[in-house]
């Protein structure tokens, strides 16, 4: 794949998904594209790209996006943010909803990859809200990549993925099969996984009434204009006073001024 071909492909993916690959990612993209060229029996980039562009099912674009967006992650990543969520944000939400008959708390893991983050959030919700009356909760977990979603739904992880899970939680929420750990069905059933493109206006408008959105290390794949667009969709998706957690190196203030920055004891969080 030449530099011009990379730019053609990069712009095509950007238009379809909002994901933007900088020039320095060319090698990363090229390796994955070449494996798709081989797998689909095409002789060169040109014929593969033409075929993909006119594939009305969109299946090949999805396959390629799947290959390009796999992110390795693990349970209880960025512990200080999760501590903030559990000990500072959740109590605020509960207080705010104290007048409601049934306090429903809705959390969204946007860009959930193979499921470590939403299951971590589900464990926290289970632990923090157990025994509190009139409380129900939901964790929604979305990703553009259908392959990682399938893996997430299976809920089976290596010992490396669960290395930061406290022993007590490992016993309570996982079934160990040798080196593998399976999320217990009771927890698995509480997380709703589905595919979602954060740049899809129609799909994003269905996402409403969330109290917290976790979108960590996802917006780094977007360019400035798409980041603002996604931030606006998040704004619409959040309930009044809702919170957004970004990755530790990301800043919403650099994307848009529409959220307030809240300095909690354990972390910085953005609030509607």
């Amino acid at each position: 794949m030449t530099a011009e071909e990379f730019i053609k492909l990069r712009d095509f993916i950007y238009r379809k998904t909002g994901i933007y690959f900088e020039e320095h990612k060319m090698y990363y993209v090229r390796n994955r594209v070449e494996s798709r060229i081989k797998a689909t029996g095409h002789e060169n980039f040109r014929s593969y790209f033409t075929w993909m562009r006119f594939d009305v099912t969109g299946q090949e674009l999805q396959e390629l996006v799947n290959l390009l967006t796999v992110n390795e992650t693990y349970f209880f990543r960025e512990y200080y943010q999760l501590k903030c969520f559990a000990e500072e944000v959740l109590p605020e939400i509960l207080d705010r909803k104290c007048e409601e008959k049934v306090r429903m708390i809705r959390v969204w893991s946007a860009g959930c990859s193979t499921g470590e983050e939403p299951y971590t959030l589900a464990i926290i919700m289970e632990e923090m809200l157990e025994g509190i009356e009139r409380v129900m909760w939901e964790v929604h977990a979305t990703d553009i990549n259908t392959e990682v979603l399938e893996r997430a739904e299976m809920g089976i992880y290596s010992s490396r993925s669960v290395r930061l899970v406290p022993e007590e939680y490992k016993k309570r929420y996982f079934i160990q099969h040798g080196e593998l750990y399976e999320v217990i069905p009771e927890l698995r059933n509480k997380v709703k996984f589905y595919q979602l493109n954060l740049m899809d206006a129609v799909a994003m408008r269905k996402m409403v009434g969330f109290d917290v959105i976790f979108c960590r290390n996802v917006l780094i794949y977007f360019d400035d204009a798409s980041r603002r667009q996604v931030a606006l969709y998040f704004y619409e998706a959040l309930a009044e006073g809702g919170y957004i957690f970004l990755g530790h190196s990301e800043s919403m203030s650099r994307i848009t001024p529409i959220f307030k920055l809240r300095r909690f004891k354990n972390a910085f969080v953005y609030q509607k």
Partner: protein
Amino acid sequence: MQESRINELLNLMKKGRSENERIMAVLDLGEATGERVVKALAEQFELETSRVVQEAIVSSLIKIGDKYVAESAAEFLKSDDAYIRNAGVEILSVIGDSALEVLEKMIKYPDKDVRQLAVNAVGESNLKKSPMLLRKVIEEDEEENVVAAAIEYLGEIGSSEEDRKVIMQAASRFSSPFFDYTVKIALKKLAESK
């Protein structure tokens, strides 16, 4: 997009029942095209009191990204409101070649503050002609700060021998320590980029 739908969205943008409804209308208008839509968005942007709606307008204007958007963004550079001016710079710097003609005009605008913002937009944009426009500013503009901004950007994005020569020649145009320092850093960056 049909005219009736555009009218409905324009109405919702101004008079929607909630902020969310107005945001949605603005984002949908980003799928439309044409002078009327752009002018309406730009007008609302300057009148708007909700920052979120303003952000949605910026997003939609960038999405439309045509010459009418460039013309409206050029007007934003003249605003008294820093947020609006910055939005103008951002829009002009990301809509690509649609902004070229307007930028060529704005780097010669009588007000030096507006020229400086136009230089920022040229420097931030990824246009093929950006180095050429910056060289023009360095050679022709009379204002030290504007020339210094152009030199700073050319140091970042320039690469040719011509870029280096223009900066070298400009070194004697102003004599403040700030200007000398800007020239020195820009030449250093150009040398490193080789």
